[in-house]
Structure formats: structure tokens, C-alpha cells
């Protein structure tokens, strides 16, 4: 218990995930360690298929890990979900086809039992933030790919979560919209003090949005490089002009490219994890 209290934020320890389907065994994540301190922002970079989404799904309690420990503010994923402390933006930007856009954005609040009025207001605000005003009544199949993605972001933001888990949330957006939303997100995170774990394929986005960036190796995914960024939380587009920005980008690109060769990095080595916390 004492151990728990000292581990606020996201803690991933010795995490392994093996998919076993019809005789084929795929180890998606192998013995992975990661700590994202409370209120800080972290990104995951890594080759396609290395297990980034799997890691996020484990945190979001969608998939049960084969072994290892995962907590958010000392809660297991199942507890964290029950406590509604996180929100996930999944890679597919899933929408309910029978709900109009506004209804889709309101979904999380509705499920949490927030009164209609407040729900409306919060959804409207989020829709406006992602630039979808005017499309409130459109059904998902009437939206473009990027619009659906923005709707999924809006849905997560309405929840005002303590932990924001985002799986390539800006992948289908043009650079201008993407950058605008990057900085909207920074502002929201700064104001709310939320913890961010972001999966992205854009190295510069990772740098803009993170205090630390973890680079994963190809499958089986483990963290092979960890970069800490010194930019603080008050960030503006001018950040790009900071020479440390370009340096960080270069460093990460190299790590990404070398993925295969670099030995796994173990952070915060823990001699004996509390067995009570082992998820399974």
C-alpha cells in the first residue's frame, strides 16, 4: 500500500502482452516499463505494429495483459475505468452510426449521467474547439475522415479526464488543423493538469506535446529510448524555433531508425513489484 501511494500518474511495469489466436502467437509488447508522472505529458513513438495501441488498450482496460503491472493513480485499469478518470481516443475514431455528431460527442457525458443541459453546453464547446460547428446534425457516414477524428477528440475532451490516452488522434488532419489542435490541447492540459499519454507517428508532434518521449522497438515492442524534454508546460508555436526542438527531433528520429539495434531501456528498476497489483 505504501508503494501505491508513491506511484501517482501512469505506471507500467514488466508489461507483456501475447496474443494467442488460432495457433498463431504474437507478442505485441514484451516486458515494457514506463512511468508518466502525474500531470506530465508523454508520447509513444514506434514502428507500425509494435504494440503502441495494445499498450493503450491495456491502460484503457480493453485488453487484459498477459503479465505485468499497470496503474493510473494507483488504480488498476478496471478501477480507473469505474472511477472514470481516463478518456481514450482510439485509433479508429469509433462513432455510433445511429447517432448524429452532437449526440456522439455527448455520449460519454450521457453515460456518466450528466444532466442534459450541461451535456449540451460541454458538447457544444468541444465541437466548436475542434472546428465542427455546423455539423452537429450530420450522421458519421456523412463526415470526412478528419471530421470523424475530430469528433472523437471532442468526445474525449467533454469528459475532462485526469488521464488522456490518445492513439494517433491527429493522424487524419492537415498540418494547419493539426497544429491548431495541438496547441488547443496544450492549453486544455495546462489548465486541467491532466496527464497525457499520446501515441503519434509525427516526431515533431511528439516533441511539441511531451515532457518525455518513449521510442518503442519493432514487435515485440519494448521501450528502447527515452527522451526528456525541458520545455515546461507553457508552450507556443514559437517552440519550433528553439534549437533544442530540432535537436530533440533529430535524436528521436535516430532512435526510431535504430530501433532494432538499441538494447531495451529499463526505467525506474523495481526490485520486487507488489504482487497484489499485478494485473491479470
Amino acid at each position, binding site marked *: 500500500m505504501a508503494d501505491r501511494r508513491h506511484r501517482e500518474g501512469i505506471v507500467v511495469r514488466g508489461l507483456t*502482452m*501475447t496474443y494467442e489466436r*488460432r495457433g498463431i502467437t504474437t507478442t505485441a509488447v514484451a516486458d515494457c516499463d514506463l512511468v508518466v508522472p502525474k500531470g506530465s505529458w508523454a508520447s509513444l513513438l514506434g514502428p507500425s505494429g509494435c504494440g503502441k495501441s495494445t499498450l493503450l488498450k491495456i491502460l484503457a482496460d*480493453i*485488453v*487484459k*495483459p498477459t503479465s505485468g503491472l499497470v496503474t493510473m493513480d494507483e488504480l488498476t485499469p478496471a478501477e480507473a475505468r469505474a472511477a472514470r478518470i481516463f478518456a481514450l481516443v482510439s485509433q479508429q475514431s469509433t462513432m455510433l452510426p445511429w447517432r448524429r455528431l452532437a449526440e456522439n460527442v455527448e455520449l460519454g457525458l450521457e453515460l456518466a449521467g450528466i444532466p442534459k443541459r450541461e451535456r449540451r453546453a460541454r458538447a457544444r464547446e468541444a465541437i466548436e474547439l475542434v472546428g465542427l460547428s455546423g455539423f452537429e446534425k450530420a450522421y458519421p457516414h456523412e463526415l470526412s475522415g478528419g471530421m470523424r477524428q475530430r469528433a472523437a477528440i471532442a468526445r474525449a475532451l467533454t469528459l475532462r479526464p485526469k488521464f488522456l490516452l490518445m492513439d494517433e488522434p491527429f493522424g487524419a488532419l492537415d498540418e494547419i488543423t493539426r497544429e491548431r489542435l495541438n496547441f488547443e490541447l496544450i492549453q486544455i492540459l495546462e489548465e486541467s493538469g491532466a496527464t497525457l499519454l499520446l501515441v503519434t507517428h509525427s516526431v515533431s508532434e511528439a516533441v511539441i506535446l511531451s515532457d518525455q518521449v518513449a521510442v518503442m522497438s519493432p514487435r515485440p515492442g519494448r521501450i528502447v529510448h527515452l527522451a526528456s524534454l525541458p520545455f515546461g508546460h507553457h508552450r507556443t508555436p514559437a517552440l519550433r524555433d528553439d534549437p533544442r526542438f530540432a535537436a530533440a527531433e533529430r535524436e528521436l528520429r535516430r532512435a526510431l531508425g535504430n530501433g532494432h539495434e538499441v538494447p531495451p531501456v529499463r526505467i525506474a528498476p523495481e526490485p520486487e513489484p507488489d504482487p497484489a497489483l499485478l494485473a491479470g
Partner: protein
Amino acid sequence: MSRVGRRIRDGAGGMRAPLAFLAAALLLWQVVTSTGLVKFYVLPAPSTVLEAMARYAPTIAEESLATLTVALAGFGLGTVAAIAVAMTLTYARLVRDAVYPLLLALRALPFIAIIPILVVIMGTGYEPRITVCALSTFLTTLVNLMRGLRSADAEVEELMHTLNATGMQRLLKVRAYAARPYLLAALRISASSCVIEATVAEWITGDSGLGYLVQISGYTFQIGLMWAAIVVASALTLGLVGIITLVERVAMPWVPRGGVGAAARQGGAA
């Protein structure tokens, strides 16, 4: 063998639960009837029924065969016809507009009134009974398939379109798969309704089959035999439904396992 075999074996293992439920139901039945609260002519004790089953075993076996023949022939004919007609109707728009509503009207005909008419046309043998079963299976399956064949995702249909798939290719490579859950639902319904249609047809018109046995034993107040026939008819259904369940297990290998339960709660290797 291995993969299909494994799925089938899992399915057979799945028969344990219904058998357990069956045993529980039988026990309840025996208890209720032996209190004497329920008169034997309302519901005889399972022991009475078993006794009748043993005594009339050859007769029951023979009549079961007759019923099974009617049910399976109707089921097979109806299913094949429905698949053929549904495929035709999805592609021939004019034919669909003209024929489908009239086919639906057929389903609305009370078959109890239809059987005597069929007898006039076909005589008193198996034919009218098979026709009734086939017609009901046909229409159930048709209605399900008409929806199922059009249930593929719009994106998938678009993909086939840009790949310049022919109508037949779309049918065989997309719609046949998309329609599968609907077809399986229809098969399940038909498996259970076929036997009932066969028995009712025999009850009305036949001189053979379990329906006939129910009728004649009811008429002469052989309550044990009547219920034995009823129980056997239900057991036949259970068997057919079981077979369909096995078919279901192997029919959709691409669906994440775990079936009806939320994928969310069952994901991963654990």
C-alpha cells in the same frame, strides 16, 4: 480437421449445458405431477410418458422417421429455394418489386386452411406436408436473406465497386458472407419450426408421423402416448437446433471468438 474439428468439439461440449437444463426441467416436471395437483390428462408424470415411450417404442420410432423425413425434406427444399430466389431477387429489381410482395402474402396464408387445399392438389401423401414445411422455411429464410444480402458495410461495397466486381463476384465474395449471420438465424428458426409444421400438418391431414400419433392418441385418450409423441417431437427439434449450433461454430471463423459476450471484457489472451 484440426481447426474445424476443434470448433465442433467445443460445440459438442456446449451440449452439456442444455442437457443439464433438460434434466432440471424433467425433475421439476416429475415433482409437480407427483404432488397430484396436476391431473394426468392435463400433464402426465414423466414416468408415465417414459412408460408409454418404452411400450410404443417401435411405433414412435417409425412415426419419428416419417416426421423427420417431412421436416428435413421441407427444410432442405425451402432453404435451397430461398437462397436461389433471394439471390435472383437482389439482382433482378423488377422481378423483386413484382414478386416479393406476393411471396410475402403467401406467408400470411393460414397454413391450417392451406393444407386441405394442398391435399386436393397433391393427394394425401407426404407431398402436402413437405410443401407446407418447405414454404414456411422458404419464406423465413427469404425474408432474412433479403436483408442479409444487403447488410455489407458501405465501404466494402464501394471497394468491390472500384475493383469492378461483377454482380456474381459481389454476391459470392461479399454478400454471401455478410448474409451469413442472417442465414444462420433463419436456419435456427426453421430448424425449430420445421418440426412443428410437419407435426401440425400430420395432425391435420396425415396418417403417419408424430403429429398423427398425437392426434390419434389424443382422440382415444392415450395420454401417455400423446405426450410421448410430443416429447419426441421436441427432442427432434433439439437435435436439429444442435446441428445448426455446430454449423454456426464453423461458419464464421473471422468473427472474434467469445461470441455474444462483450469483446471488451474478453479481449487478449487471458
